[in-house]
């Protein structure tokens, strides 16, 4: 069953660049003077790579946030990190600083994490549910700010912001793909090197501290690195929600193993899931591509609900 899943995943990954709105001749792919080769190598291939690594980052980010906050609902999105990145991107668009979009998104993510840290340090002894509520409140606050941005921006900027908030994997060339690849692999390696610490966090904070874990330092490093990676991902693709929430849970429900053993599968299937959703978004035959966030939620939500209902126990 697992091998079949891996096989299907590889078939999806390898075949993904061959499908799209432009039909191409397979034989032309290596004829670099043809337009088919340009579509394949400059548009579709980088897009698939981008989708894979962004999916990996979002899924892994969800796993880390769920583990650290000991809450199955917390992800960089529910805690406002992605909304922060989105708001700051909108600010960059309104200010006409399109070339600094990535830096703004990145700052938005970091500002949010810093705010969460300051608030968390004042929530002594209370449960992480309070912090989750703070994150949700923060998301609403950012949404309100985003509305203000819409209000003060002109029609063209508003359209840019709307397109951005829907999430999109449109890329041309390899610049942003190279960045996301480095960031994603860096994050994966870092999280893998924190496997033991994550395993301790799967018990309780108290137990982890009693076994010698420097809880503050570990939380700081993990949350910051995930936020940086998510900030970079959001700056390139816009906010693509839901993957970080459901992919870790789906894999836990299927593998029935503790989370620290699922780091690589969650990264891999997070990537495959986004590539698959993008494949559908690109091939529905509509005038333009359906926003990727629509497809992830449309496919992910029913499957997720089905898995939860099949469970005998809660997550």
């Amino acid at each position, binding site marked *: 069953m697992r091998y079949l899943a891996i096989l299907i995943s590889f078939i999806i990954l390898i075949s993904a660049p061959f499908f799209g709105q432009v039909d191409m001749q397979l034989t032309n792919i290596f004829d670099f003077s043809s337009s088919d080769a340009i579509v394949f190598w400059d548009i579709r291939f980088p897009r698939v790579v981008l989708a894979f690594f962004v999916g990996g980052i979002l899924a892994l980010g969800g796993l880390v946030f769920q583990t650290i906050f000991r809450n199955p609902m917390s992800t960089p999105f529910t805690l406002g990190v992605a909304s922060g990145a989105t708001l700051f991107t909108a600010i960059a668009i309104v200010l006409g600083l399109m070339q600094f979009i990535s830096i703004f998104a990145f700052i938005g993510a970091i500002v949010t994490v810093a705010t969460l840290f300051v608030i968390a340090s004042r929530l002594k002894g209370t449960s992480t549910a309070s912090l989750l509520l703070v994150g949700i409140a923060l998301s609403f606050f950012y949404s309100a700010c985003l509305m203000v941005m819409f209000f003060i921006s002109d029609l063209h900027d508003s359209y840019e912001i709307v397109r951005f908030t829907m999430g999109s994997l449109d890329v041309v060339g390899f610049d942003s793909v190279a960045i996301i690849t480095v960031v994603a692999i860096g994050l994966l390696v870092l999280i893998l090197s924190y496997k033991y610490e994550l*395993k301790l966090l799967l018990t*309780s904070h*108290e137990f982890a*501290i009693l*076994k010698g874990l420097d809880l*503050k330092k570990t939380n700081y490093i993990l949350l910051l690195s995930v936020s940086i990676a998510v900030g970079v991902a959001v700056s390139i693709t816009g906010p693509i929600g839901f993957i970080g929430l459901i992919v870790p849970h789906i894999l836990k429900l299927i*593998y029935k*193993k*503790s989370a620290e053993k699922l780091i690589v599968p969650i990264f891999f299937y997070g990537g495959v899931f986004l590539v698959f959703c993008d494949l559908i978004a690109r091939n529905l035959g509509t005038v333009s591509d359906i926003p990727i966030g629509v497809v992830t939620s449309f496919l992910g939500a029913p499957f997720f609900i089905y898995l939860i209902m099949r469970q005998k126990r*809660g997550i």
Partner: protein
Amino acid sequence: MLKLDNYSNYILDDISLSVKGQNLIILGSNGCGKTTLAKAISGLLDNSKLDTKLVNYIPTKLDIFDSFLSVKEFLDLSCLYGKRTIDEVCEILDISDLKEKNAKTLSSGESQLVLLASAILHSAKYTILDEPTSNLDPQKVKRVFRLLKDDTILNYKVIITHNLDLAYKLGFDVTYIKDGKIDFSGTGQEFFAQDNLDKYFDKSVKNIDGNIVVSI
């Protein structure tokens, strides 16, 4: 040595306590600050890195976040300084059949035994046990009593309990907490003398032929 100097917080009121090379029983009514005292003296309330070799704290309830972490994996994380293997410790506590279960699905009694196994595998110099027998059936209380009495299982112990007979028969020194303050500190013999019991338990606890009996 575990030590608190004039320590105060939201419940504890100017407590000074040191535990040096001895076993100790902490008694006191519900909500008087026993668990807070135990966490304070183990360093858990400082939010900093702990000396795992010196101290371990075992809570009453097993708290696990991940639904699929097995008992064996949980115990793996506890293996620090103890000389016994997981299999040996499970054998001693008669919980070998629990090893493959998910730690989160255990009953409260089972999880209390798993916590005790974790304490033995960790083997800190001082182990603070917070009501280690509160969810156990009488046979298991007896088994745990023998393990707590045996100094080769755990080194020094600080035990919080409401089981007065267990506390008496362990024969450790006793500290009694009342309203966040230390109200009594002395040997077990002194504390469990009838006059003293009358003073602390409203004449409802009797020392009859070497057994501590609670009349309801």
